[in-house]
């Protein structure tokens, strides 16, 4: 990195230097503005009872207990489905598929497109498939399944990265020892690639928690305590949307909920980049 700072400013470049510094200052300024607004309005509302009690008067009063539980359940469903599919796909693509195979290229292409699909289109799709065609209705299950489709490309990408960081020697040594492919995978590659998988999981959780448009017509709006996965349940982001757009006088609680959501995401974000730096950029010594 220090290597790239060998460039020295020329004599008459004050304008470009100014432009670069002010672009950075502008971005930082906007960020601090947004964050300060959320923190200064939301902080005083947060209390233990806000986090654990049910909301009252359509969210104007009371807390976000059931909303937190629904969010957790939606994320759990999402991970329970996307983890096995994502892991299997990453293993197959990175370990058992030649770069130029037709099947591999088709799957990669389709994942490229999938990652660009707008979230609202996932919402339409989830509504048509899970809510209507499979008869799950507005439920935590439908929401989680739709989210699983959305986070797959991200999860697969990060997991593939994990497998790529495993040295080639491991595979050739295993083959030389006569290990079967499945035992090579389970005893050697999988443990060594776990960091990538975990980073992918954390990133996926972040993406899933932040999502709103996918969930409005799949998991729905109900803000009671969810009793089963077939109940409708609103997540944190839908709660913010509903309070600010449809409930007059809900702004105070919307600020508090935003603060909870942002703090949650900051924690997730920092965990994932800390893990990525610590694990993925370092050679794995022990198995």
């Amino acid at each position: 990195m220090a290597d790239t700072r060998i460039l020295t400013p020329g004599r008459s470049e004050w304008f470009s230097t100014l432009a670069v510094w002010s672009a950075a200052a502008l971005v930082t300024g906007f960020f601090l503005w947004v964050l300060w607004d959320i923190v200064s309005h939301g902080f005083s509302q947060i209390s233990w009872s806000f986090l654990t009690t049910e909301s009252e008067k359509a969210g104007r009063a009371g807390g976000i207990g059931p909303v937190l539980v629904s969010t957790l359940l939606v994320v759990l469903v999402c991970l329970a489905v996307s983890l096995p599919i994502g892991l299997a796909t990453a293993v197959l693509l990175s370990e058992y598929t030649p770069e130029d195979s037709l099947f591999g290229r088709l799957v990669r292409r389709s994942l490229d497109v999938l990652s660009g699909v707008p979230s609202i289109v996932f919402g339409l799709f989830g509504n048509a498939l899970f809510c209507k065609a499979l008869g799950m209705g507005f439920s935590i299950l439908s929401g989680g399944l739709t989210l699983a489709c959305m986070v797959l490309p991200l999860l697969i990408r990060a997991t593939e990265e994990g497998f790529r960081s495993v040295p080639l020697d491991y595979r050739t040594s295993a083959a030389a020892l006569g290990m079967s492919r499945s035992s090579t995978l389970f005893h050697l590659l999988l443990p060594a690639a776990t960091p990538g998988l975990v980073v992918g999981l954390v990133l996926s959780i972040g993406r899933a928690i932040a999502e709103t448009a996918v969930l409005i017509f799949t998991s729905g709006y109900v803000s009671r305590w969810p009793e089963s996965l077939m109940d409708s349940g609103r997540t944190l982001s839908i709660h913010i949307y509903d309070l600010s757009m449809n409930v007059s006088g809900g702004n105070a609680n919307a600020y508090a909920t935003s603060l909870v959501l942002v703090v949650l995401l900051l924690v997730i974000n920092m965990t994932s980049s800390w893990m990525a730096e610590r694990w993925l950029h370092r050679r794995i010594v022990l198995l």
Partner: protein
Amino acid sequence: MSRSRNDAILIWTLRVFTAIAGAIVLLIVGFLIVESIPVLKSVGLSRFFTDPSWHPARNISNSDETYGLAPMITGTLISMALSVLVATPLGVLSAVFCHYYAPPTIARYYRRLIEVLAGIPSVVYGFWGLMVLVPAIGRIHPPGPSLLAAVIILIIMIIPTIALMADSSLANVPPAYLRGAVALGLSRWGTIRHVVFPAAKSGLFTGVILETGRAIGETMAVLMVAGNMVQTPKSIFDPIRTLTANVALEMAYAMGDHRSALFVSGLVLLAMIVALVSAAEWIGKGRIYG
């Protein structure tokens, strides 16, 4: 490699799961088409682009439904174009700042900040826009919810996308190029303009494609600040409605042909994204997901 029975089972299990992952896109396209067929049969595709207005539910005067998506497509394209136009230089300069201007410590914190910005959910940006930006614009030029508000929110949201992409493509510029430039006596900005940018061109293009995709697909934040009136905006202070916001707003109560028409707008959105991804492939970078 030994070929045990277990290996065969393993490979086939992996293949089945991978096929599921690969088939999701096909499922999405399939379901959008199936749900669109009723209205396409009764109305036809062309009226979605030629009808003057959007009244898909029969209104009180009992006149015919109209299905014009044109105002929404215009809304999406204008807000996308304006936000990409502003966000691209800001994002690229951000990355340049990180690599060639900022002291290492500041660069590290700044990069972390951009990553955090990328993770803030759209509904929080939208809420901030609703509480701070819209009233501020309303004081300058009523009504407040407007194309301008949508564009500003989009800019803030897509800057991290282009900045992170530009950052990684600048990191891939061979250090030898820079040393060569220094040896030739090129100044800092001269090197960046004439050596770094050309070398990082394809990565920067991919970044632009990605941010454009985000700008087209963004739903909640835009919905919360854009005013959502179905009209072609005459000025930057006019309210607009985008394709995505249209779906999010009406899906809750849409029935029959109306519901079906919303799936058609989903198809239009998907077509825009596929066109973008193809453009990206054509420009030359392979995988862009993640």
